[in-house]
């Protein structure tokens, strides 16, 4: 298929641009939390998660018109998460680093749970996050998309650039691995 031209938003007529901007605003408002959550769980700290989220939306804005045309009405969340996913991969490659804060010790475990949950469930949460941190990148990312973002297999497949079947297997194996490793800790 010939590559479609990417139309810069500024090159559209005013009416089309206004419509595009409104649609982007909706996308931003709807998925800011998704992109930020994904970024946070990938990089493990608030500062870099903010940078990553900002860059993801800037890049999304540049390519939004084309993405809409090519989506054929399908949700754009997987496309957005794929942008964040690629940026996060570059982030590690360019700086040759892993998350500065591991998932095991990342703030949200404390911040996102009430006092009662911390007191009663913190150890279990730490344990599962520690094991999650040790999974391969693709398994960990698939679980973040499933559980933090609530994405279904098809969405995750599109975000990771895999088939639906391969994604289903990936998630199944990731959960099974966690189950076994946590069982070994008992």
């Amino acid at each position: 298929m010939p590559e479609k031209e990417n139309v810069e938003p500024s090159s559209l007529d005013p009416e089309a641009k206004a419509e595009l901007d409104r649609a982007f605003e909706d996308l931003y408002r709807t998925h800011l939390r998704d992109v930020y959550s994904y970024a946070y769980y990938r990089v493990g700290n608030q500062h870099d998660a903010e940078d990553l989220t900002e860059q993801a939306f800037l890049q999304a804005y540049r390519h939004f018109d084309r993405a809409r045309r090519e989506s054929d009405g399908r949700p754009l969340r997987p496309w957005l998460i794929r942008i964040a996913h690629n940026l996060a991969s570059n982030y590690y490659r360019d700086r040759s680093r892993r998350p500065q804060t591991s998932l095991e010790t990342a703030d949200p475990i404390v911040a996102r749970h009430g006092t009662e949950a911390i007191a009663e469930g913190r150890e279990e949460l730490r344990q599962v996050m520690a094991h999650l941190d040790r999974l391969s990148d693709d398994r960990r990312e698939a679980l973040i998309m499933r559980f933090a973002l609530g994405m279904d297999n098809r969405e995750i497949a599109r975000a990771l650039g895999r088939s639906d079947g391969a994604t289903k297997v990936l998630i199944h194996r990731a959960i099974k691995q966690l189950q076994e490793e946590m069982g070994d800790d008992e």
Partner: protein
Amino acid sequence: MSEANRGFAGSSWNVEHLLSDALRPIEPPERLSGRFEDTLAAVTQAAAEELSDWAEELSESELRALRDPRNWVRPVVAMGAGGAAAGALVVLELRRRGRREAKVGLRSLADRIRP
């Protein structure tokens, strides 16, 4: 909350339950929309200055040369940068709505804290 409810059932961990508990969505900081707006505005300004400086530098001969599409690279690059930044107007609206919704968010938080 018992262990069974939280994720340990019988002799095995309910990993999916624990993951749901551990990997909750995280609310972005409120300042993020403002930051996004500032970045877009900065790119817009840079692109506008680039175009302005470039236009002021032009001599008559350069203006004539501009009729040749082969010389359109520089303004197009600057306009491209401005294109991404043109969303600043979008984000102005986002910030306005964000402030309005923040009140709802705080109210919601207060409701959750309330015993």
